[in-house]
């Protein structure tokens, strides 16, 4: 009897093992490359929901620091390596890669995906000939985050749409260097995604542009001199020491510990500075749109982290199913249920900003939406330009020249050279790079 039971048990176990093996063998595995940002970590945590809904698809994750990820996915997509099925890329890469034929058109997101609900500014930056090549996971612009208590103490009131003149006045009034409080914190670390992003967005509001209609660099213009001079002067007057090495994280740390009166940076920081767990000033923060000079353009940028399928992927259908799940309204509802409304990835869907629960939970939501809607990546400057992009120029050469120009700006901020020298160097190196790449007509 015992022998029979043993045989039966073994047989059952063998059959179930065989079924399990065959089931897992038939499941398709997709590899997702993503960055280590809070919203992506949440996506990874909640991905069991996707796997439960799609038992035929297994997920493998590769999470990396932004610059390493960019280097890795660029190598893979350019050589058609096929290591990844879903890639996290930014609004800078999408138009360039899409035109190169490196991305698959997202035409399999499903009927109930509601593409029309995507914010027009974001959707436009991710489409080529009205076809979507990447789906936005979260979008951001930039805005002014300020300490309400310090501003009140200074006897000032922040307008919803401040001018650069007001920002300088407020920064001066809030600065108390002896107490270690600095009126304004801005990015100073060199890099195309660091200080160049901030100063390029600033320059748009000062009437400057990177190139004229014939791709000739414009750093020798008065508008650029006004932009950089303002940046250096305001930081000298009211900025923290060593600002030329401060990026997003350094300024976030300064703001969260009460060392900054104002911080102009990514709207996504709104959730960090109002998070009581990490921020010492969580209940004393106000938000306003990025400043302007009254020329019709504000100094804010537009960026989105998006999910795209490289054309080298052999599992495009499964990859698009995942993208559809991760960028859907249902995913937002899932995050709200598991982590709260303030944790929902911002800046991608109109419906999120029509949701009173989200608007109540996220005090920065209104300014975020207004900031995103105020930007036009295809018409970013006061004067006409031949390029797309607000805080970057969507050409393959920009990463290199953007960082080189950022180094000049950073040196001017550190006092190693004058504003004139920095701009003259920028003009020379950009001119050389553009002529080498045969852009100027």
């Amino acid at each position: 009897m015992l022998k029979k039971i043993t045989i039966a048990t073994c047989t059952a176990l063998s059959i179930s093992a065989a079924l399990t093996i065959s089931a897992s063998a038939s499941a398709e595995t997709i590899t997702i490359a993503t960055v280590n940002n809070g919203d992506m970590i949440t996506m990874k945590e909640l991905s069991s929901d996707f796997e439960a809904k799609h038992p035929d698809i297994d997920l493998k994750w590769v999470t990396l620091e932004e610059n390493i990820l960019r280097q890795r996915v660029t190598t893979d997509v350019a050589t058609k390596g096929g290591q990844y099925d879903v890639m996290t890329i930014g609004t800078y890469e999408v138009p360039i890669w899409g035109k190169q034929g490196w991305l698959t058109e997202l035409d399999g997101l499903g009927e109930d995906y509601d593409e029309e609900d995507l914010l027009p500014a974001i959707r436009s930056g991710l489409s080529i000939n009205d076809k979507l090549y990447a789906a936005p996971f979260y979008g951001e612009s930039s805005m002014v985050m300020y300490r309400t208590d310090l501003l009140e103490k200074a006897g000032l009131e922040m307008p919803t749409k401040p001018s650069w003149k007001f920002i300088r006045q407020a920064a001066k009034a809030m600065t108390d260097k002896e107490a270690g409080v600095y009126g304004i914190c801005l990015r100073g670390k060199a890099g195309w995604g660091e200080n160049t992003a901030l100063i390029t967005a600033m320059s748009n509001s000062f009437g400057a542009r990177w190139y004229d209609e014939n791709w000739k660099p414009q750093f020798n213009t008065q508008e650029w001199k006004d932009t950089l001079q303002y940046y250096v002067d305001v930081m000298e007057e009211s900025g923290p020491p060593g600002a030329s090495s401060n990026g997003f994280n350094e300024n976030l740390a300064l703001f969260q510990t009460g060392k900054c009166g104002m911080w102009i940076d990514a709207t996504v920081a709104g959730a960090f500075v109002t998070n009581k767990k990490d921020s010492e000033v969580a209940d004393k923060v106000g938000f306003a749109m990025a400043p302007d000079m009254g020329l019709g353009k504000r100094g804010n940028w537009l960026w989105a982290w998006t999910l795209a399928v490289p054309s080298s992927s052999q599992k495009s259908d499964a990859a698009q199913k995942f993208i559809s799940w991760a960028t859907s309204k249902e995913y937002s509802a899932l995050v709200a249920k598991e982590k709260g409304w303030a944790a929902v990835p911002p800046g991608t869907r109109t419906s999120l900003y029509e949701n009173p629960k989200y608007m109540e939970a996220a005090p920065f939501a209104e300014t975020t939406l207004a900031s995103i809607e105020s930007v036009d990546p295809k018409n970013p400057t006061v004067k006409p330009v031949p390029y797309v992009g607000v805080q970057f120029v969507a050409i393959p050469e920009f990463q290199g020249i953007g960082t080189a120009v950022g180094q000049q700006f950073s040196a001017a901020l550190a006092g190693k050279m004058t504003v004139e020298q920095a701009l003259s160097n920028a003009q020379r190196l950009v001119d050389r790079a553009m002529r080498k790449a045969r852009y100027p007509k």
Partner: protein
Amino acid sequence: MAIQSSNKSKIIYTLLAWSISAAIFFPIFWTLLTSFKTEAEAISASPSLFMFDWTLENYQDVLARSPYFEHFWNSVVISLGSSLIGLLIAIPAAWSMAFVQTKRTKNLLMWMLSTKMLPPVGVLIPIYLLFRDFDLLDTKLGLVIVMTLINLPIMVWMLYTYFREIPNEILEASRMDGASIKAEIFHVLLPIALPGIASTLLLNVILAWNEAFWTLILTAANAAPLTAFIASYSSPEGLFYAKLSAASAMAIAPILILGWFSQKQLVRGLTFGAVK
């Protein structure tokens, strides 16, 4: 008087050595401390040395979020595998260069070393394409091959230096006794050069363990070692310093422990032949 002066300089040198060691070790010490802090304490403008709320939360988070042991195993296979295969090639190569020299041996050695002077990114695309075509992307085998080739010049050079210190007469005597080349290498050369071989092996394990260009570029989800594990905790938009420190501590701990226990062999091997 002379003894007093000698003692004084001994104390000064000891203090100097301790100060330099402390300065070198400080970043590792600070990383370890930060790994036990909360994220808020990790970014504090007035950081505390020991008076903070010690927590293991970062280690728990890191272990929950990433498959640490998979990365660890990949690191072990890649570093040990490449070092052992490298030794198999480097020992006969160094033997021939040390004991059967030709007029081009020095040039060959210099050429091998010169390959280390090339920036790795210079050969990124050809190597990536080769890996793609041979299905080696994201495989441990592929990384073992690359690590072996990258570290081979150093292994050959190190072994060559050790072998040169061994008197040729000993090997000649074994040949006179009728030993074959195999017997000469295995029964005479290797036992004498064992400390040098051990230190070469250890150094290459450390180099392969810490390599963070090819291991990041050529792997994805299956063969990623601990370098990729650390890279997954760095973020330019979001403060994860405490978690990053915990991940760093977990990644460097095995190699630090190995280095600690084998420091005598390492120092002996690295200083072999330095003083005559």
